[in-house]
């Protein structure tokens, strides 16, 4: 009876009927979600148990192989068809913890299976392609370098970045040029991160970086990255290039990066060019000038540093205080004992509370 009344009501009120129908769909969907969550958990637990058991067997055998108690064939005999990619993942984790001979043995253990990864480079998902690149470069040494370099042109920036980082980790100067050529692809990435990546290749990358810094046809961001990387490498040979950039550029970020480089590798004879930027309207440029003068400034600059204590920007005053501390400028003690509004900053430096 009640069903009949309900049925009649909904026939007469299609709006309510629609709401009820939507409601039902929603409730069924919610139930399906709950069941899905449960099934997912059951499946995940089962899979995790399976892999844990398998990896425990592999692990003990791997340790035997790495310590030369067993030949590699004994481990390979445990790898069933279909488990190869999982085995490579397992070796990846091992590889990250090891160095030297043991690390090379891990590469040898992976070698027979690495070709199975190659089809993944054509996978639709960029994450899978990136993972494949990671596996190949970590475990495959130079054998797959061609594929990895080619991945710098992958349509996905993620894949290109994984490839660039993997190549940089190989610490081979051969890869510096392709990475630099593709640096524009990582325009969104933080320059200091890119610089660190390039510097990780080692001193052999410096000539290519100097060239990039000197070349005004490169975009300022790439030149900034090059300057930062040269600074990380403490590349003294780049002092002249940096000096020339200082005269030529008006780009704020490039100026800042170049001044930071000069603070590390600059020479006394370059201070004239550096002082020209003391009057820059940008406080970040003036603060960098202070840092450079603290490192390579002459006695003439002592007064400049004291004057900078009155700069409207606290950052410039901070860098000037640091510079005075580093250059053992006696004016810092006088400032600390004075009633200067920033005397506390001088005291902070002298008590080691700064920098």
């Amino acid at each position: 009876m009640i069903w009949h009344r309900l049925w009649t009501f909904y026939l007469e009120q299609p709006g309510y009927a629609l709401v009820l129908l939507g409601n039902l769909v929603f409730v069924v969907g919610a139930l399906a979600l709950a069941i899905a969550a449960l099934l997912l958990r059951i499946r995940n637990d089962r899979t995790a148990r399976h892999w844990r058991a398998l990896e425990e067997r592999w692990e003990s055998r791997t340790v035997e192989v790495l310590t030369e108690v067993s030949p590699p064939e004994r481990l390979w005999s445990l790898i069933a068809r279909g488990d190869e990619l999982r085995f490579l993942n397992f070796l990846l984790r091992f590889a990250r913890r090891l160095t030297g001979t043991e690390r090379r043995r891990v590469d040898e253990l992976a070698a027979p299976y690495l070709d199975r990864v190659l089809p993944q480079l054509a996978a639709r998902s960029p994450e899978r392609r990136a993972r494949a690149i990671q596996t190949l470069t970590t475990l495959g040494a130079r054998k797959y370098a061609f594929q990895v370099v080619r991945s710098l042109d992958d349509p996905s920036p993620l894949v290109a970045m994984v490839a660039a980082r993997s190549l940089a980790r190989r610490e081979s100067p051969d890869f510096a040029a392709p990475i630099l050529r593709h640096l524009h692809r990582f325009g969104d990435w933080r320059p200091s991160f890119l610089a660190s990546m390039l510097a990780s290749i080692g001193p052999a990358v410096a000539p290519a970086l100097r060239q990039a810094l000197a070349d005004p046809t490169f975009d300022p961001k790439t030149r900034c990255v090059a300057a930062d990387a040269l600074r990380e490498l403490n590349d003294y040979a780049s002092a002249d290039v940096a000096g020339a950039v200082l005269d030529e550029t008006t780009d704020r970020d490039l100026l800042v990066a170049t001044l930071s480089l000069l603070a590390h590798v600059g020479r006394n004879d370059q201070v004239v060019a550096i002082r020209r930027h003391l009057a820059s309207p940008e406080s970040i440029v003036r603060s960098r000038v202070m840092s450079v003068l603290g490192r390579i400034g002459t006695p003439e600059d002592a007064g400049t540093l004291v004057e900078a204590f009155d700069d409207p920007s606290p950052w410039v005053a901070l860098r000037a205080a640091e510079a005075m501390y580093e250059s053992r400028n006696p004016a810092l003690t006088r400032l600390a004992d004075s009633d200067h509004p920033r005397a506390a900053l001088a005291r902070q430096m002298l008590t080691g509370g700064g920098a």
Partner: protein
Amino acid sequence: MIYQFVLRLLDIFNVIVLTYFVVLNVGYFITGLFAFRSLRRYVRRLRTLDIEDLLGSAGMPPITLVAPAFNEEPTCVESIRSLLTLKYGDFEILFVNDGSKDGTLARMIESFDLEPTFRLPTGNIATRTVRGIYRSRSHPKLWVLDKENGGKADTLNAGLNYCRTPLFCGMDADSLLEREALTRIVRPFVEDARTVAAGGIIRIVNGCTVSEGTVTNVTLPTEMVPRLQVLEYLRAFLAGRMGWHEMEATLIISGAFGVFRRDLVVEAGGYATDTVGEDMELVVRLHRLCREKKIPYTIGFVPDPVAWTECPATLKVLGRQRDRWQRGLIETLWRHRTMLFNPRYGRVGMLAYPYFVFLEMLAPLVETFGYVTFLAAWLLGRLSPSFALAFFGLSIGLGIGLSFTAVALEEVGFRRYPRRKDLYTLIWVAVVENFGYRQLTMWWRLRGTINVFKKGHAWGRMDRQGFGPRTKPTA
């Protein structure tokens, strides 16, 4: 005649309430879909990330953790110890004591061997007087500012004034960050230089085992009130914020764990001290600043860096917290009302803002209104079973469906509750919370809506138990 009019009015109200619930359903459903898509992609992407490799990179930007504290004596030492063990290259901690009335400062001085020192402020946001600056002899990364009481936003601003790094992390002094949390939350800043702010996920520590400042065993709390909040947090972060992140319209970054670009926050004027929702207000203001000044930017949510926090264990404290949240929401949305349906603010103005105004801010009013008209219709003999079915189906079904979505998203993503028993409990809680607890939450939010006119921006009072007593394994 009047009776007929009232009945007619009731019918109209019923239709309005039902329509509202339909829109709400659709809104949550769409957000959930976006969240699912985003989370799946994120988890796949995580597999391509070698966190150790990132940690070893010199290119990670330096960060200052600004930890504001007011009467945090029971938890401050363990929280700071936990922060000191974070795996991150270049960071310092600014613990800012907001004139605590308990022994917070004394405990900090004693536990970390603090000595008075100097430090130049680099920002000039107006705050209450900083009475003293200390630095730890045993942990040079740790600085402590002691200031006059001025509220959480004022305390964060004081920390911001002394911050020297390009990024700062706003957090609660009683939160426990996971060791790799900073590395993970900084990734968006590294991968996209336009990033101005990113929020991490907040999870509830009640019920978990904490050892030396680290959560070592994740289990659901045994008490019902914290349990209900675990589910709420999953829903808010995994279904809500993940979805908004995918739509590039993140409007909230939790005050308990978010990283910001210092220069932009200073340019925006720091945290607003005249609202209780300073965290949301800052994010909305950053959106405005970047849009109005045409600064390319992104603000996002990262689901894997975790800050563990203690949630209220009693209904009384929880009620106060929800009251504050609602007031913060209303104050923020009212202050920036110019953004509503304003195409100048892109998706934030056209999508997220209307959503928060109509479906979040007004929800307690409409739902309460729905219950009242429902009751009135029943008393007047006007309640049809069909309407009752539709009303309860929509209001209860919505709650259950949304919570199940959050539980499913947790399974797809992170599975932080490894015991299967906890999963069953979460599913059960998703059902029972709709009968009583949800209505109570509505009441607290309604109270917050009324209280919005009573100004007052002191710290929310929270009865802390500390991490110690709850560290016994529950299993």
